[in-house]
């Protein structure tokens, strides 16, 4: 049932250690939320799972679908079923979004995906070029809906998105993580980084974690954890015993 297992992962960038003996398990069909202040290693964690090469893994391993992917290349991981919505993705000159959809998945139904994200007007545009913050997020969801990963990582998919589109993005995440199906039928999983939790009103998260200083300090029900953060801030989570890790 386990899809992703991170064991004692320590990661540094240059001489700076970002993740320290990090542990996380995500089962098939589960979606987890990650909370935590800026600079605590949330994006690093997602980037390392995706396989972005500028990080050094000092110890530990990442097991995905039973395979050790710790040192696998990015594209191999993607083909194994890992997908990522970037927080600030680059623009690609001369590559039209509709062409990228076909490259990602020649069998994808591009027009229905674009329609679902109310993004048809951007099909002929260069990927992310001149897009607003919210449009970039929808572009990411369009690409992931084409890619159909088994495990989707969402790095602040709600930042810069207006209320109307937050709902669209929440629905897309529910589709990607099969929340429209009965729990026992779900095989796809996800992890989402969010600062404000608005998006959680439109999508279903099964479990949440608070990260501080490169480790998880608290885990539990997303609603309860969010309420706790609102009450006493992230630091309050460090000494909190109401949500057992």
């Amino acid at each position, binding site marked *: 049932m386990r899809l992703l297992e991170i064991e004692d992962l320590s990661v540094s960038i240059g001489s700076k250690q970002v993740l320290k003996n990090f542990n996380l398990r995500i089962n098939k069909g589960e979606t987890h939320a990650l909370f935590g202040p800026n600079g605590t290693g949330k994006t690093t964690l997602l980037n390392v799972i995706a396989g972005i090469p500028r990080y050094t893994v000092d110890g530990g391993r990442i097991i995905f679908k039973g395979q050790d992917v710790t040192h696998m290349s990015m*594209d191999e991981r993607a083909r194994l079923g890992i997908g990522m919505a970037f927080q600030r993705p680059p623009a*690609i000159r*001369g590559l039209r979004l509709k062409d990228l959809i076909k490259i990602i998945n020649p069998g994808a139904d591009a027009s229905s995906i674009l329609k679902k994200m109310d993004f048809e007007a951007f099909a002929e545009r260069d990927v992310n070029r001149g897009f607003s913050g919210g449009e970039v997020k929808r572009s990411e969801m369009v690409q992931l809906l084409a890619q159909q990963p088994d495990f989707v990582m969402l790095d602040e998919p709600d930042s810069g998105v207006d209320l109307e589109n937050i709902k669209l993005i929440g629905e897309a995440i529910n589709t990607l993580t099969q929340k429209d199906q009965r729990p026992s039928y779900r095989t796809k999983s996800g992890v989402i980084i969010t600062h404000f939790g608005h998006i959680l009103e439109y999508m279903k998260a099964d479990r949440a974690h608070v990260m501080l200083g490169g480790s998880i300090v608290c885990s539990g029900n997303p609603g309860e954890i969010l309420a706790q953060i609102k009450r006493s801030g992230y630091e309050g989570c460090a000494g909190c015993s109401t949500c057992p890790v």
Partner: protein
Amino acid sequence: MQHVSGIEDKAKAAHGKKAAFGTDVDLESFESEIREHEAVKSAEDLPSEVKKAALDVGVKLDDESAGAYVQMDQTPVVASSMFEGVEIMDIASALKKYDFLKDYYWKLVAPDADKYTADVAEAAPSGYFVRARKGTKTVFPIKSCLYLGSTNFNQRVHNIVIAEEGSELHMITGCTTPSHVQRGLHLGISEFFIQKNAKVSFTMIHSWGKEVEVRPRTGIVMEEGSSLSNNYILLKPVKTLQTFPTARLVGRGAVASFNSVIYSSMGNIDIGSNVFLDAPETSAESISRVVSVGGEVIARGRMTGRVPGARAHLECVGLLLSDKGRIYSIPELDGQSRDLDMSHEAAVGRISEEELEYLMSRGLTSEQATSVIVRGFLDVEIKGLPEDLKQEIKNITQREDLKGAS
């Protein structure tokens, strides 16, 4: 004819005169003796080798053309118009037929500009004369192919294009050698007269052999309200190539746009455009995209603004995919009046890691991602072209087996 002797005198005086840019070519090492080819009735009757070579440079000699011109070495073999109001002739016949042409011949390019212009001026005229009569608007492009089919041959071409008032003219010219010809020289003079409110698009695609040297010399004059979209594509290896077309925007509101797409793997390519904005409300844009996996590319761009209110923009962007290549970008802006709006953007670099990683996170291999980025980079959005021609250009830039970083 007095003007011809004047041209010859000037040419004589410019023997051995080196060009301002580009490596020096030894003209003596090429053969100028003309081997005649037989003219054919229509493009369909051309040897299959020529048709195939033309097709490789985007020149599909079919009914969807306003006309065709094909020159093999020094011989015009096809010159036919398929559109009323458009004239296509070989330049020698045109000079005989039209006395007025003496006012156009060698008026925008000087015969004594350098040894190459001088060499063409001394040869019997060969090339095309194209004229769109007043108000004529072509739908399909005129297609021409300049075919250098003999090894070591010095191909000398002189073209004149006149777009009369209010006309619309689209041209696509492919210059090429068959695969068995590795060494040769192509000298091409082109003079464009774009008259009041005329609209011209001119797309040139070059595909040469590895020992071919190329020296086009182009002069353009643009009158009031006219527009030009000049596009140049070079994706195959060449030994040396140097060109610096000069456009003078002399009429109010004239608009010129130069786009070039270069993929360099060897040799020395020195290319750019030189635009003079000499009338109010004129504007010009020059965009070059260079991808290099080897060889040296010098990407020039010069804009001179001489009247208030002229607008100019230069963009030279280079992608260097190998240590074996060099891209030297030289954007120049020369403002000589008040109220000018002139700008440039130049960048030379490698493929962005971030872009590569982004595409790899979607499952593309490093090679696929590189290829997608390079193709995208070369996909210049060219405004003002008919859809068919846009597609033709896209097919060429996209079909090449463009290899990634080595």
